[in-house]
């Protein structure tokens, strides 16, 4: 494997460009798997509910982050919700972005959930997004069982 070194500007020192390339396969877990399978197979979004504080979390978790209780109750959530906050990313970063910028991200409170879901916003005028906007999930036609099976959330026209 070729090893490169470069002289850097006027510093009189060398740099050595390289990269860490490591493969990963993350375990989604039973709860996460069911969440994704419902989205993939049935276009249904689920959360889990804490028996103590009654918060409904999405993505669903096994343990309530607030109370540390086991959450076994699955709650089906609406695919519509309210936008809590948003931003439009206007810079490019190699390898990590799902779309070419500019693209919009938001935190959506799905009807029925207590926690917000961070996701992309689409079919939207990037200069006309507002907090409190009602939005609806758009699912991909071909779904594989991951976060981007929801393509984005689009404004819900009255």
């Amino acid at each position, binding site marked *: 494997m070729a090893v490169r070194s470069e002289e*850097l500007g006027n*510093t*009189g*020192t060398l740099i050595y460009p390289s990269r*860490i390339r490591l493969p*990963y396969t*993350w375990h*989604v*877990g039973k709860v*996460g798997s069911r969440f994704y399978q419902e989205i993939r197979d049935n276009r249904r979004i689920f959360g889990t509910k804490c028996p103590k504080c009654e918060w409904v*979390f*999405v*993505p669903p978790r096994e343990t309530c*982050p*607030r109370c540390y209780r086991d959450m076994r109750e699955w709650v089906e959530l609406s695919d519509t919700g309210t936008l*809590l*906050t*948003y*931003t*439009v*990313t*206007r*810079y490019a*970063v*190699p*390898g*990590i*972005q*799902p*779309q070419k910028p500019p*693209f919009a*991200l*938001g*935190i959506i409170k799905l009807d029925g959930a207590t*926690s*917000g*879901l*961070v*996701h*992309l916003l689409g079919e939207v005028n990037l200069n006309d997004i507002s*907090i409190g906007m009602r939005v609806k999930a758009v699912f991909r036609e071909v779904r594989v069982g*991951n*976060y*981007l099976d929801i393509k984005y959330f689009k404004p819900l026209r009255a």
Partner: protein
Amino acid sequence: MEKVGIIGVAQTKYQRYNPASHAELAYEVTCKALEDAGLTIDDIDNTITVCNDFWDGRTISSMAITEATGSHKSPTTNVEGDGTYGALMGLMRLLSGLHEITLVVAQSKISEGIPSVITNAMFDPIYERMLGLDAINSAALQMRSYMSKYGVTEEQCAKISVKNHKNAKANPYAHLSMDITVEDVLKSRVLADPIKLLDTSPISDGACAIIMARERTAKRKHGKPIWIKGVGHCADAYHLGDRDLAEVDALASAAKRAYNMAGIRRPLKQVHVAEVYDAFTYMELMWMEGLGFCDRGKAGAMVDSGLTEMNGALPVNPSGGVLSAHAVQVAGLARVAEAVLQLRGEAGGRQVDGASTALAHGIEGACGQGHCVFILGK
């Protein structure tokens, strides 16, 4: 809490690219801290390094600076988090009574990596990481949420950029010092609304080291130990959607612990100078609220009043803060070092006159999920 004093501090000049290696950078700042304390490496009986495998591009990243920091000579461990957490670990090791003098070293060469890729890795690989979230656009979500909830304006945030970049002119270590106006900030390139270029901190290489000692040794070894009066740390929920991003409960909890230990009941009156982790302009406002300088949602008004300017009642970030120099992992420890210089009266052109109690603050994770607060006194 038994008295522990900071008897040595050092920082390197923060800059976009430092051609030194990690080891050279760590060695430089270690030697400087020892010199400042009037000690040699043999006086140090335990070392805390602050290294992060992602930022350093190396698994067991502390290996890169082991010899340079002398950690091969004494009991040592590595905290992976902001430098304030490293200082906390060092403090705990002293309070245990098992060690006398602790060296804490943090170094950073962000120039080696792609920051957004590294901060993208903070997000859950199973869920949100796929959205291309990084430190900047997640902060934008928080800034929008905070502004919306409390009516804080982009102008008020911009004032922080103006203040801190101007303060940095008196700080020989600062990376970015400049005279700018609110209008300059508002017109700067939008990265992720509402965050603009001049709302963000730079990418800096640099290092910081502090030396702490138990009371008896601190007094014997050094003329002017600066005492640690209180410390607290706390973390909020992880998923951004689990949090109210406009609120600062975790910081308030950390601050409460630190204030209780230090006997501080009225922070605005009893803290004379504060160095807080302003990775973005809006964060300085939020952290002012979490630290109890004002009520929730009132930091904008406090900034408008000029209270946190150099000539105000409670100067915040006389050093120029993180907005002027952001060496990740280092920046919180640098806040501690700056606070020490203030209390020693050695802060030169950025000195806050008569300061006898200072606050130093660091953050951890996305949108300031974790916080660590130190109260220092003479």
